[in-house]
């Protein structure tokens, strides 16, 4: 029995930063990027997902349209909405681009604070040790 998408995506909540629409986009990407939602999997219709997430149909529709524009999901008239073949790689590339951007911003903030490259590197090394989570390079799946 596959996990209901609404449960995998949630909670879509006003208590979480970002618009509800952006939360849905990000959550779908997260699931696809983590390989939990494989290419070819069917997504629920707008109306079914809206009902399950207790959000307006237009919120889900706009989120799906955004994901479709990015080539992560596709729609087939009368059949439904599916995760695109390139969905996984595009999502991974997007997540990687986000990470690179965040690092660039961190460097920028460090420069503004007058930190040297050496201090920045040391801070980065310390952060790698202190932030929970493992180096995934040796156990890549798929």
């Amino acid at each position, binding site marked *: 029995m596959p996990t209901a998408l609404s449960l995998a995506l949630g909670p879509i909540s*006003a208590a979480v930063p970002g*618009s*509800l*629409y952006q939360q849905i986009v990000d959550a779908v990407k997260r699931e696809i990027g983590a390989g939990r939602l494989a290419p070819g999997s069917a997504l629920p219709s707008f*109306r*079914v997902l*809206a*009902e399950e997430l*207790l*959000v*307006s*149909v*237009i*919120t889900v529709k*706009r989120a799906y349209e955004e994901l479709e524009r990015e080539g992560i999901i596709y729609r087939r008239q009368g059949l439904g909405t599916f995760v695109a073949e390139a969905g996984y790689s595009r999502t991974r590339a997007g997540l990687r681009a986000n990470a690179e951007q965040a690092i660039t911003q961190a460097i920028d903030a460090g420069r503004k604070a007058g930190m040297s490259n050496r201090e920045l590197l040391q801070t980065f090394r310390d952060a790698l040790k202190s932030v929970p989570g493992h180096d995934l390079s040796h156990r890549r799946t798929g």
Partner: protein
Amino acid sequence: MSEPAIVIQELRKSVSASFCFGPLSLSIPKGVICALIGPNGAGKTTLMNLVMGTSPADGGCARVFGCDVATATVEVKRLTALVSPEISYRAWVTVGKAIDFVSGFYPDWNPQRCTDLLRLLGLSRSERVDSLSLGGRVKLSLLLALARDVRLLLLDEPSIGLDPLARQQLYAELLAFMRDEERTVVISSHQLGELERCADYVAVVNEGQLVASGATPDLLARYTELDVLLGLDELTAHDGLHLLSRSGQRARVLWDRAEPRSCVSKANAKLQIIGERPLTLEELLVALVKSKSGIRWRPRFGAV
């Protein structure tokens, strides 16, 4: 684009000596939950009654799925159900008798759905109508509407008297009702957080007039609040800005991006923008009503 669910043209009604509704024109698409919002006495209930055809208009016209509400009264009542805490079912003594009476009128009544709704809403047929709480009366009204197979559901303040759990249940039922794309819901409520979350479309009314309408995300993207330093030139109505509050040269303004001659788009001496932030639906309603209610900035006013 398919035909809208509701088309209102120049509709007006003189309600009392002090309140005149309209002329108001509004079109609500099919397949949406439309939030009808505005302050008390804005004309939300009047609008619903006019659409239902329960009170005749003085002028203009309203169509529900193409049927003129003034002439095709039976057809409109067959397609539409109204939910309101104002409707009294006291005359039927018990919930069960009210159900039996109302169901007799409608060929589209679904007894199985009615049984499910009784259980879901925690009502029982033997309960006395006059001992129901306000929330209980709303639930009964909701049950009598949802047990039918209507295409348009009008809900006038349905969340009054409902606890947070019951309100969540109400919205879950409305979203389930929307599974059929031919259906449309118009709902008025002051619980704007919930409406912002569940409504696809918003119509803002004030003093019997339509102030703004559109798809919820579009409307929320159209208006933002700016924190500004005012220059020496006065703001005019053509600047696309509405002053919300002011202290000295520092002011909060509502910026309507749809305004073609907005002075925000071009650098000028009128103001310097310090900050910008999006508005929630509740903040937008307050800002729109404040900005359109004739409050105009004059230098001598100080804080408005």
